[in-house]
Structure formats: structure tokens, C-alpha cells
């Protein structure tokens, strides 16, 4: 029998009258995935829900690559985050729209992102235009609600996939450098076999890598203005439900 009684909060450090848990002793910043990152990437969730994972990921990658190719800054910009598009000048945005139209991506993007473009003020990708979609506001808001609900939990597959896309887009636009000898995350496993151990390991990796996007760069890049705006508009867009 183990006679040593377990010490309550034994792994915590006592400072005055407080017991500080081990992680909190590292003095790391507090990032909220829901508050700060989710609004930045939910547009990709709309694409995935509209067209399925393969085509959704393809569309978001294409627009990100095109945007990256024409953007002016010599710093890497991750166009997986919607507020990154604010870095583009009006002229560059116009060019991007033309390119998307030429490649037959524009209508698909407009159709899928319509709820955000039409009803959310300050959505950074509004420049894509609403394409004159006919469906009612109610229909569009319900569509957005379903997507937000599906992607809300970052431990479930839809939520993991859009976080993975943040990493993927960074990689395909030359912003990701893996140290030699280290294995890159197997993003394919998230789509092909989400319940596998490989996928679970990858999911953990992408969650922490996506958090770093919010921690890097300036406040604007981390999207705090759009992120705040997205959530703050919720009560105006729709009523509470019980």
C-alpha cells in the first residue's frame, strides 16, 4: 500500500496566497483560439462545407497563393488569415479579383463566403464582391451558423482541418521551414484517416502551430480588429437561442 498521501496541488508553486500551476509559471501569453484565431479562418470552413475538403482546401490555397504572389511586403504574409487581405492595396485587390475570375474561382468564393461578405461589416475579404446571390438572408445566416457550429471545437475534424490549412498555406507560400531531421506534420492523414494515431498527433501539432500565427507579428496581423468585430456583430446578426 502506498502510505505517502498525495499532496493536493503538489505540482503547483505557492506565491503568497496563490498556487500557480506549472504551465502558468512559464509566463506564456494567453491566446484564445476562439476569440482571436477562429474568426480569421472560418472563411475556409465555409469553403469546405460548400465544396468538400479537397475542393475547399484547393480554393483557399489558390486564393492565398495568388494573393501572396502579388502582395508588396517582403515579410511573409499568411493569407490563410482573412485579415491578411487588408495588407493588399485597392489596386492589388482588384488584380486579385481579376485573377480569380480568370481562373473560375471567383464565383465559387463569392457564393460560399456570401454570409460574411454581405452581412458582416469589416470582413477583410468583402472586396471579392457578393456576386448578386439570390438566396435569402435567413438562409445565408443559417448556413453560416451551421459552419460556425461544426468548426467551433478545435478537437473535432472540421476545426482541425481549417487550422491545418493555416499551416499548409504557410508552407506552400514559402513561410514554413522545418529543421532537418524533424518530421513535418502529415496533414493528409487529417482528411484521409482522422481517427488514426497519426492524425491525432498531427492535429496536436497543427493546433500549436496555428496558435503561433496569433502570437507572431503585430496586433493587426493577429487579426484582433476583425476577430473582435466578428464576434461583436453576432447579437446584431441573430437572436439568442435557448
Amino acid at each position: 500500500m502506498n502510505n505517502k498521501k498525495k499532496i493536493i496541488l503538489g505540482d503547483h508553486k505557492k506565491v503568497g496566497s496563490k498556487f500557480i500551476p506549472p504551465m502558468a509559471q512559464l509566463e506564456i501569453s494567453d491566446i484564445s483560439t476562439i476569440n482571436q484565431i477562429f474568426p480569421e479562418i472560418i472563411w475556409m470552413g465555409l469553403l469546405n462545407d460548400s465544396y468538400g475538403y479537397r475542393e475547399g482546401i484547393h480554393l483557399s490555397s489558390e486564393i492565398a497563393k495568388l494573393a501572396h504572389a502579388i502582395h508588396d511586403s517582403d515579410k511573409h504574409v499568411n493569407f490563410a488569415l482573412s485579415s491578411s487581405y487588408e495588407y493588399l492595396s485597392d489596386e492589388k485587390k482588384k488584380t486579385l479579383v481579376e485573377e480569380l475570375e480568370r481562373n473560375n474561382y471567383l464565383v465559387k468564393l463569392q457564393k460560399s463566403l456570401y454570409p460574411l461578405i454581405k452581412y458582416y461589416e469589416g470582413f477583410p475579404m468583402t472586396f471579392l464582391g457578393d456576386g448578386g446571390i439570390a438566396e435569402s438572408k435567413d438562409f445565408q445566416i443559417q448556413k453560416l451558423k451551421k459552419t460556425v457550429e461544426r468548426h467551433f471545437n478545435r478537437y473535432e475534424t472540421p476545426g482541425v482541418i481549417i487550422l491545418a490549412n493555416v499551416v499548409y498555406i504557410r508552407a506552400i507560400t514559402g513561410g514554413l521551414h522545418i529543421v532537418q531531421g524533424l518530421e513535418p506534420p502529415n496533414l493528409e492523414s487529417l482528411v484521409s484517416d482522422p481517427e488514426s494515431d497519426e492524425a491525432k498527433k498531427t492535429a496536436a501539432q497543427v493546433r500549436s502551430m496555428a496558435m503561433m500565427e496569433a502570437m507572431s507579428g503585430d496586433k493587426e496581423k493577429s487579426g484582433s480588429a476583425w476577430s473582435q468585430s466578428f464576434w461583436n456583430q453576432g447579437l446584431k446578426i441573430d437572436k439568442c437561442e435557448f
Partner: protein
Amino acid sequence: MDDERQEFFQKLNNFINNYQDILSAGIEERWLKLPIKLYDKEIYEVIGGLLARQATLSMLLASSPYIWNGHIAPIILRVMTDAHITLAWILKDPPDRVKKYIHYGLGQEKLFIEHLKAGVEENDDEDIKKLIKYKEEWLESQRREFLTEVNVGSWSGLGTREMANEADCDSLYKYAYAPFSGATHNMWQHISRFNLKYCKNPLHKYHKIPSVDRASLDPDYLYRSAKYVDKSFALVDKIFGLTIDTSMPLNWFIEEFDKLFEQKKTDVENKEDD
């Protein structure tokens, strides 16, 4: 209300009345059997007062089924656990600790009277003046005001946790006093469960909104109050070697409660057989 429900409520009413009688009888019997030394009457007044406090709280909780819920009952139960810890700590050294307890209470009353007097200087209120007079008379009947000290710290010189520790009430402190403090002090762990509810709209980040919904009734709260008054009774019996004929509240509660609901179950089964 149909006959069956009416009958059940009548039986519940009887159960509550009988429970209150048990507590009342328990207090009376203990008071008669306590080896009171009138020279140190204050010791027995404090012990008797705290026991009566426990019984009163439990009796009033019993008589109000609508507050057998998470909104109100924990406040009462927290008071009861506090009363037991106070009683248990005092019983470790009654002569010294009863004095501290009483003097502290008198000092608090003196302080309140001073606040009232300061208030009445600005705002000449006849009712307040009467209240001051009444309170001063009460205070003087116990101890001369000019000898009454005012202590703005803890009455025992210890926090409740230390008192519980010294009085072998550690478990009661950890598993009852501290958790019930959330309701008593309107802390987040209580408010977020009882006074807020989730909005199901994902566009609202599943935020919580104020709720005044009724909480469900749970006789477990009454059971706990029986437990605490039983604890206080048992402690005094042990310290003073009392043999009490009146049933102990907790045993009585369990037996009669089981009978009440066993009967209800039988009634329901009989009705289903019909």
C-alpha cells in the same frame, strides 16, 4: 389537485412537522440535562444558543420546501457549517473562547451603534434614535459600553479554516463550508451555474446570459441540514456525556424519509396495477 397528490403532500407536511418536533424536543432535553454551572452561565448560554441556532435553521429550511434548491439552501447550509465549526472550536476551551465570542459580538454591536449615531447627526430620524436607544440598552444589559472593546479582525484570532483544523472539522470545512461559500458570497462558481444559462447560437460564441429560472427542488439539502444539526447535537452529547432519549435528527430523518418515499412508490405501483 388529485387525491393522490393531496395525500402525498399531507404526508410530507406531517414529515416536516414531526422533524421540527424532533429538533425542538432534542434542544429541550439537552438543555435540561446539560450540567449547567450558573457561575459560568455564559458558557452554557453560548452552547445552548448555538445549538438552538442549528435547530432553528434546519426547522425553517424544512418548513420551506421551495427553497430546497441551489439558490438558497447552500446559504443556509453554509451558516450551519459555520455554526458547527464555531461551536466545536469553542468547546475545545470554553472559558476563554466563550469570552472572546461574546465580547466580539458586543463590540460589533457597539460599532454599529456608533455608525447609527453618526448617521443620525446628519439626518435627524426619530426611528433611528429609537433603534439606537434600544440597542444601547441591550448592550448595557450585557456589559458597560465604556468597557466594551471593538475588534475589527477575526473574533477568534484565526481564520475559519484554522478553527476547523483545530476543532477536527477539516472535512466539514473542505467539503461543505468552502463549497457553500460560493453561493454565500455570490462567487463565479455559483453564479455561472445558477444565474446564467447558455445561448445555443454559435454566432454568439455560445455565451451565457442572465437567468432567473427556478432551480429544481432537492430534499438532499434538507438531509444535509439534518446532518449538520445532528453533528452539533452529537458533539455536545459527547463532550458532556449526555444520554438523550429523543431520536437523533439524522437517523430519524433517514428512516422517516425512506418510509415516506417507499409509501409513495407503493402507491404509484398500486395505481399502475389498477
